[in-house]
């Protein structure tokens, strides 16, 4: 008996994992053959890319008024869609949480969230352009739908993971349902909710530069037109501006998270920055 246990392998070989990995490898080889990917095509592609990049520089900012107008509209679309989306996702996510709501409430809400998540924002934007016409409104509505889907789903999941002991204690005080939500549920998920919201704002900012391609407002329309007219230097100017906008958004999101989640004030943030710099300098001195 004891010799048999001593000889048992330390790790069991999982045949299914092995078979799955081999099948994946075989499929990748098969698919590349189907797609007619060859070194020749990659080589000509690289050549084209170099020529294309060459025509993009130097970037051309002469039509900056159009650029700024487009960026402004994108920013408006992103902010309004985020605000509207967050406002709607809060009750929808709450109602979709299966540990708080009976099945007849949570299932319709979950279906709604699945619906909102099924299509890419650009596809939703096409539908809204048909419904409300060209312009920013279609973009706002499309990104609102995307925000509801994303925040609603993650918020509901966060609520399903909360500690029910804390909720039970608040219920035991005789608190009404909304009181239990305000004191027992939301405090447990608030930080994560802020996280989801800032992430979605970031995502909306990126998508708001794209919905313009299908006529739903924002810088995307300008970008698409420049591409079609082969104004590659103007395309480059637009791309640089978009990168700047996204970076600004990221920066803001970091600050919003620091303030809401870590409870820091602006003064704290400033001090932390300065403190970081100071400690970095000290480290540097020690190195010398």
């Amino acid at each position, binding site marked *: 008996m004891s010799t048999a246990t001593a000889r048992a392998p330390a790790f069991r070989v999982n045949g299914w994992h092995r078979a799955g990995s081999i099948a994946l490898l075989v499929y990748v080889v098969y698919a590349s053959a189907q797609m007619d990917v060859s070194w020749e095509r990659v080589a000509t592609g690289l050549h084209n890319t170099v020529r294309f990049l060459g025509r993009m520089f130097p970037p051309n900012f002469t039509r900056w008024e159009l650029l700024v107008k487009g960026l402004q509209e994108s920013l408006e679309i992103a902010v309004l869609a985020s605000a509207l989306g967050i406002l709607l996702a809060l009750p929808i996510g709450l109602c979709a949480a299966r540990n708080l709501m009976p099945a007849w409430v949570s299932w319709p809400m979950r279906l709604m969230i699945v619906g909102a998540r099924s299509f890419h924002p650009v596809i939703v934007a096409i539908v809204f352009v048909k419904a409300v016409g060209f312009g920013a409104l279609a973009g706002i509505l499309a990104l609102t739908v995307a925000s509801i889907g994303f925040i609603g789903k993650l918020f509901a999941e966060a609520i399903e993971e909360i500690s029910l*002991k804390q909720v039970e204690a608040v219920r*035991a*005080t*005789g*608190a009404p349902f*909304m009181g*239990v939500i305000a004191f027992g549920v939301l405090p447990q998920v608030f*930080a994560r909710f802020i996280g989801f919201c800032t992430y979605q704002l970031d995502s909306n900012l990126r998508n708001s530069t794209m919905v313009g391609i299908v006529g739903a407002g924002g810088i995307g329309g300008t970008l698409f037109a420049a591409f079609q007219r082969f104004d590659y230097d103007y395309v480059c100017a637009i791309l640089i501006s978009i990168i700047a906008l996204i970076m600004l958004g990221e920066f803001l999101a970091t600050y919003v998270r620091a303030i809401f989640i870590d409870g820091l004030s602006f003064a704290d943030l400033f001090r932390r920055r300065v403190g970081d710099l100071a400690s970095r300098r000290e480290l540097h001195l020690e190195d010398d």
Partner: protein
Amino acid sequence: MLSIKHLSKSYVAGKPVLTDIDLEVAARGITAIIGPSGTGKSTLIRCINRLVEPTSGSIEFEGRDLVMLPRAALRQARRHIGMVFQEYNLVERLTVMENLLAGRLGYVSSWRAWRRKFPAEDIARAFEVLDVVGLAGFAHQRADSLSGGQRQRVGIARAVMQQPSLLLADEPTSSLDPKTSVEIMQLLTDIARQRGIPVIINMHDVELAKRFADRIVGMADGRVVFDGPPDRLSDAVLKTIYGGEDWLQ
């Protein structure tokens, strides 16, 4: 005050956790419920404020049968029953003050609660209660920054904020060290005596129960097998409650 009659509870049909419990609790005094793990002490206490729904029987409190109350009336009744938990069950991410004011949620409108606009007298009382439990100056600390003993003090303070006419405590000292356990029991019983309200406490620790309780209820297999003052709790009685005798030596 509180009168439990023929109370039974089974989570799974045919496997009762509580069987035909009869218990009368007077308008004051400390009642400790002792018994082995899994014998239904926690279930019994939770049936009283219906955090667990009883299967049958009646629980009369302030002249009404809690078991039959519809939801809204049950919430009204719960306001008068404070509860202290084994793992404190504070809302971790809220401040001590917010946790205390959670005890007033049954009395203020949800709209005010969402905006944290509690009446001035509630806030004044919260500061008083903090003094009583020995946590003056902790109002703005977050609950998750406190030690176990401090947390249980907040748990007691939250229950007291309800101005309850009955206190329930479910293993309030099981997560604490022996010294802190005694301090917490002292605080709980002092508050109860001072306010003249009855307390029902589930306990693991027989010695602690004997020291602080006026009355001991022994449970085994979901039934009450002993009910009397601490000095009548002999070894023979402990044997019927916990079974075996080797541990008594």
